[in-house]
């Protein structure tokens, strides 16, 4: 497995951030080895900066239950970014709609 880009990025990151990471578990201290730099996610997969593909079971520690970059989720974010300001009073619609989901009993 070629991870040369991850190795050089981690060297650079260690000069910029404490431990070379912005969250401790990302430094791989608990498992040893070279922390990987992930470039993108798609469905069940992650791709690192060297182009290696991995099946992901971290999934942002759970919330990515629809997988990485699901087209429906991406489209919803794009539309919201285009037409909503963070101060829009219309956001209450969204809170209430999401709140309704919470009220449903999930298995």
């Amino acid at each position, binding site marked *: *497995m070629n991870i040369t880009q991850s190795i050089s990025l981690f060297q650079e990151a260690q000069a910029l951030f404490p431990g070379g990471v912005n969250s401790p*578990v*990302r430094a*791989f201290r*608990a*498992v*040893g*080895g070279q922390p*990987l730099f992930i470039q993108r996610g798609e*469905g*069940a997969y*992650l791709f690192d900066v060297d182009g*290696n*593909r*991995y*099946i*992901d*079971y*971290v*999934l942002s*520690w*759970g*919330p*990515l*239950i*629809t*997988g*990485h970059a*699901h087209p*429906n*989720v991406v*489209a*919803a*974010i794009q*539309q*919201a*970014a285009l037409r*909503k*300001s*963070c101060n*829009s009073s*219309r*956001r*209450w619609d*969204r*809170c209430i*709609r*999401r709140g309704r*989901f919470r009220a449903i009993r999930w*298995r």
Partner: protein
Amino acid sequence: MYQAGTLSGNPLAMSAGIAALELIRGEEVWEKLEQAAGRLEAGIGEAAKRAGIPIQQTRVGTMFTTFFSETQPRDWESVKAADKARFGRFFQKMLENGVYLAPSQFEAGFLSIMHDEAVIDATIAAAERAFAEL
């Protein structure tokens, strides 16, 4: 309880949340997730058995952990007894075989609706190879 946050109700997060919840709405989605998680749990268990590696598995729905331990983890004492060095080696072997687990014995793994049978079976095959090299 006082609860507040600068980004509470943020429109981008709310929109993403609604889209995600729409996608996982319905019994059949959860049945498929449960099947996928059960298939993974059984496959990893069998692979470890064949390799003669003692593991303990914990799982609630799509959330799971494989402990390298002789005893079932029930509390802090029994969880602490897990072989962290062996987990580290397993983690590295899984990475080499194209599977990214949480980089700690004390974190959990999760599944998504994109983890279909082919993905699960590829993971089990990776675990088979990883256990053989431990």
